[in-house]
């Protein structure tokens, strides 16, 4: 079904958060943290706008809207609304509303709270632009904007080295992946000639049929895997927990890290279903799931535990998407929805505990249930969903995904086993996060813990209750959200039936029981498990996080060595190299391709023309025999004036005029430079140095002469000069063609040139002002010292 064209409201919905980001700092200055209430209206309205799409989209309709951006390149700012993008847009704006409120409470009184709101809203707009993006280039731009806003948010607390490192690491990893994605998109555009996603999706085999399928596949995967923190790029995500908790809850669990999963789901009809797809994705997804859950068990920091389970969940989603099985994809969509709700809620709970109790180390927390009853309730609801217990949406997701993987003939068994182990460990973490801080004997915390304000508990309560509510109306959820999204993944309209409770005792139910049993068994042994994993990791002693540091240090070292090789710091060497390469560049092609110009015949000059040539010649002789450098400089001016005269005689007054001035000024400036440099008045080079310099000089001169001869021996193409002669008066109102060309016909060139003149002037000025200092060897730049594990939270 071709998408219907809609009005521009949806485009403005994408841009609205950016507008809100501009006013956020001012609102925060006036209303302090209560500005959150006002700012939350923006995502709430966007949410309402997208709820309007739910009903038509569930009937299989889709919509596009576009505005031309750079039409000559086919780049539009365009949106494509279908099941998948509606689900994402609702999650982004819905969770975003509560994150804004939560940020109001969490950073209450922070001097930079306005800036924080601003970044958060900019991120929201970028994310909306990404998931709704129809044009590949504008999708890419929003993709990069999410990386940049994520960088700003992770590094929000920029006075701490650990935050700065984490921000930079996230930017390098996701930005690097972004470049791969751009290359992939460009290949798609050049291979298919299409730039709009909706057009591509209309003919699903368009990419698979091209010979570029494999490179496109890997490049797109490069973007998706780095963004969604798949092994071995997973290390940046736990480090990103340096960000304030609202950021962790929003970007690094509920939305941004799902961008990669979104892309894979979006591209599934185009790239999916091939053998490559069903091999690579489940493999990396599965490894990520296991690595994530195992590393999560080892942590004692609430946020880090949740961060690693996020990595694991993303792995699960990629693994399921990689199966290309209808039922498994349905499970992936359900799990995506469930995860965004429970993980967002749990992160906010972790933040509230940290905010109110002063620590988020589970070994130092306990017995908070009576002090923070509402937070405890929200934590329980979210954790039950995460653990995959009925009657929560997490349970339905788990049932459906087991059904999907179990039924897959080729690789069903290993995938199912991976999923069971992963889910069991997920249950362990869920239990640890929800039970440990709240139950048991009361432990003294750094701050006297009590319930947070409404701004802090509104989000977790609402999200976790939604997780319950969507499960209770399972049938409607399936019809309105899961079915349409699945249709986008499959590229055809699909109807699904969801049930809260299994209708019969089947394999998925038994697998669920196994998962729960295994999870409870492991939970009782959590301390022993933690010790075991810890000692294994210590034995290995290396992880991708350390690898990142080694990589960065290696690059810095390499660039330092190359710089030292090319930049000796000696003017003479630079000049010599420049002229040798110039000479080679103009001489060699003529000799190698045997296309030397013919020797011109002796011209028929008049006596005064010969006279001028003689003046130039004597000027050059004077340069060579000059005793002092100053004489040489002035003599060079003689030759320059002679050339200016030649221009004058052959009808180029402007050129001649300029040449006179340039010669005069360069003699003056060179002479002035001479007085400032501590050079001896005469040139002392003799013997070999003089011969080498002479050869280079003659070589360059010969090369330029031959080039000029070759050019003049080409037939003259008069199209341009005819055009200028014809239109100089009529279009540009000027009789001086040279000036008209400079200021009008090719004015844009001139603008660039004068910008260069200004810059060159600034540089020369800076160089003149440098005082001579005693010579000091250039120090090797210090590589950024990797922070100790304590700073980065033992990230692996």
């Amino acid at each position, binding site marked *: 079904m071709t998408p219907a064209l809609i009005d521009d409201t949806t485009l403005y919905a994408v841009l609205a958060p950016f507008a809100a980001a501009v006013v956020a700092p001012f609102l925060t200055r006036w209303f302090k943290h209560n500005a959150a209430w006002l700012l939350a209206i923006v995502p709430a309205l966007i949410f309402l706008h997208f709820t309007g799409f739910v009903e038509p989209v569930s009937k299989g309709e889709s919509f596009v809207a576009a505005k031309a951006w750079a039409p000559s390149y086919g780049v539009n700012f365009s949106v494509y609304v279908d099941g998948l993008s509606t689900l994402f847009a609702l999650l982004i704006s819905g969770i975003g509303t509560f994150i804004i409120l939560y940020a109001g409470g969490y950073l209450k009184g922070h001097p930079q709270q306005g800036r924080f709101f601003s970044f958060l809203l900019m991120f929201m707009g970028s994310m909306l632009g990404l998931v709704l993006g129809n044009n590949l280039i504008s999708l890419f731009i929003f993709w990069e904007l999410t990386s940049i806003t994520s960088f700003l948010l992770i590094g929000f607390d920029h006075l701490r080295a650990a935050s700065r490192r984490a921000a930079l690491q996230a930017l390098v990893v996701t930005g690097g992946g972004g470049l791969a994605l751009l290359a992939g998109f460009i290949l798609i555009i050049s291979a298919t000639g299409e730039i709009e996603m909706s057009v591509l999706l209309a003919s699903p085999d368009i990419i698979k049929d091209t010979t570029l399928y494999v490179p496109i596949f890997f490049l797109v995967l490069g973007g998706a895997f780095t963004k969604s923190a798949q092994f071995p790029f997973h290390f940046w995500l736990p480090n990103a927990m340096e960000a304030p908790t609202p950021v962790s809850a929003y970007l690094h669990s509920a939305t941004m890290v799902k961008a990669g999963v979104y892309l894979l789901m979006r591209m599934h009809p185009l790239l999916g279903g091939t053998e490559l797809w069903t091999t690579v994705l489940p493999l990396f997804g599965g490894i990520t799931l296991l690595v994530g859950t195992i590393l999560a068990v080892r942590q004692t920091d609430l946020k880090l535990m949740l961060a690693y389970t996020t990595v694991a969940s993303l792995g699960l989603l990629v693994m399921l998407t990689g199966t290309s099985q209808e039922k498994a994809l349905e499970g992936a969509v359900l799990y995506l929805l469930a995860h965004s709700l429970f993980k967002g809620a749990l992160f906010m709970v972790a933040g509230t505990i940290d905010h109110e109790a002063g620590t988020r180390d589970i070994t130092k927390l306990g017995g908070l249930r009576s002090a923070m009853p509402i937070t405890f309730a929200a934590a329980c609801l979210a954790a039950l969903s995460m653990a995959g217990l009925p009657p929560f949406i997490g349970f339905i997701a788990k049932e459906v995904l087991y059904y999907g993987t179990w039924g897959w003939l080729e690789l069903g068994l290993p995938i199912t086993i991976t999923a069971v182990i992963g889910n069991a460990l997920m249950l362990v973490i869920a239990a640890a996060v929800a039970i440990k801080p709240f139950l048991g004997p009361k432990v003294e915390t750094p701050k006297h813990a009590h319930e947070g304000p409404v701004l802090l508990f509104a989000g977790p309560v609402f999200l976790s209750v939604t997780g319950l509510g969507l499960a209770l109306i399972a049938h409607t959820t399936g019809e309105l959200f899961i079915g349409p999204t699945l249709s986008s993944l499959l590229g055809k309209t699909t109807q699904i039936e969801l049930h809260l409770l299994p209708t019969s005792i089947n394999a998925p139910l038994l697998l669920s029981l196994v998962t729960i049993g295994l999870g409870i068994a492991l939970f009782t042994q959590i301390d022993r498990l933690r010790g075991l994993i810890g000692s294994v990791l210590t034995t290995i002693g290396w992880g991708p996080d350390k690898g990142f540091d080694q990589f960065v240090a290696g690059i810095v070292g390499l660039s330092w060595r190359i710089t030292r090789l090319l930049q000796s710091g000696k003017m003479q060497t630079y000049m010599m190299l420049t002229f040798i390469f110039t000479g080679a560049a103009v001489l060699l092609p003529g000799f190698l391709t045997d296309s030397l110009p013919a020797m011109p015949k002796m011209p028929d000059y008049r006596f005064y023309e010969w006279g001028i040539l003689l003046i130039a010649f004597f000027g050059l002789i004077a340069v060579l025999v000059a005793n002092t450098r100053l004489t040489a400089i002035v003599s060079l001016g003689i030759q320059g004036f002679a050339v200016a005269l030649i221009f004058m005689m052959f009808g180029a*007054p*402007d050129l001649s*005029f*300029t040449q006179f*001035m*340039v010669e*005069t*000024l360069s003699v*003056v*400036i060179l002479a*002035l*430079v001479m*007085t*400032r440099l501590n050079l001896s008045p005469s040139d002392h080079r003799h013997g070999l140095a003089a011969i080498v310099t002479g050869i280079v000089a003659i070589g360059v001169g010969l090369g330029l002469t031959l080039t000029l001869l070759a050019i003049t021996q080409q037939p003259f193409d008069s199209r341009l000069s005819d055009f200028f002669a014809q239109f100089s008066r009529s279009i*540009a*109102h*000027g*009789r*001086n063609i*040279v*000036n*008209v060309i*400079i*200021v*009008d016909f090719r*004015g*844009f060139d*001139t*603008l660039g040139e*004068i*910008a260069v*003149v*200004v810059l*060159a*002037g*600034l540089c*020369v*000025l800076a160089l*003149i*002002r440098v*005082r001579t200092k005693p010579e000091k060897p250039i120090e090797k730049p210090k590589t950024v010292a990797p922070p100790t594990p304590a700073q980065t939270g033992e990230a692996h």
Partner: protein
Amino acid sequence: MRTIIFRTIAPYLSALMVLFSIFVLLRGHNEPGGGFIGGLIAASALAIFGIACGVASVRRAIVFHPMGVSGFGLFLAAVAGIPSIFKAQAFMTSQWLELHVFGVEIALSTPLFFDIGVYLVVVGAIGSIALALEEREAD
């Protein structure tokens, strides 16, 4: 260099050169000349004045820092490209305005302002290099 004759003549010579440079700048569209040449002449004038009477007096005479003049020139040249946008034409499409003042026809145009920008850029950049070199002790 600082002979009494040179020192006496230099201010007048510089003034004449600057005047001439403006003349060259303004006639540029129809006769040989233009912003670039004009700028070079004016920069030479500054250099001569500086050699004769010292850099400090040049700086006093031109009020603004030469690099500031240069930057303003670049700004002016870039701004001269903008009016065409309001007429939905491409950036830098030339716009002409014929004024009649006391019976004299004056042609104002965006290329003229562009050329003045070029002139200022060249005077400023070359002038500031020359002056900086003439100063024994960098300011």
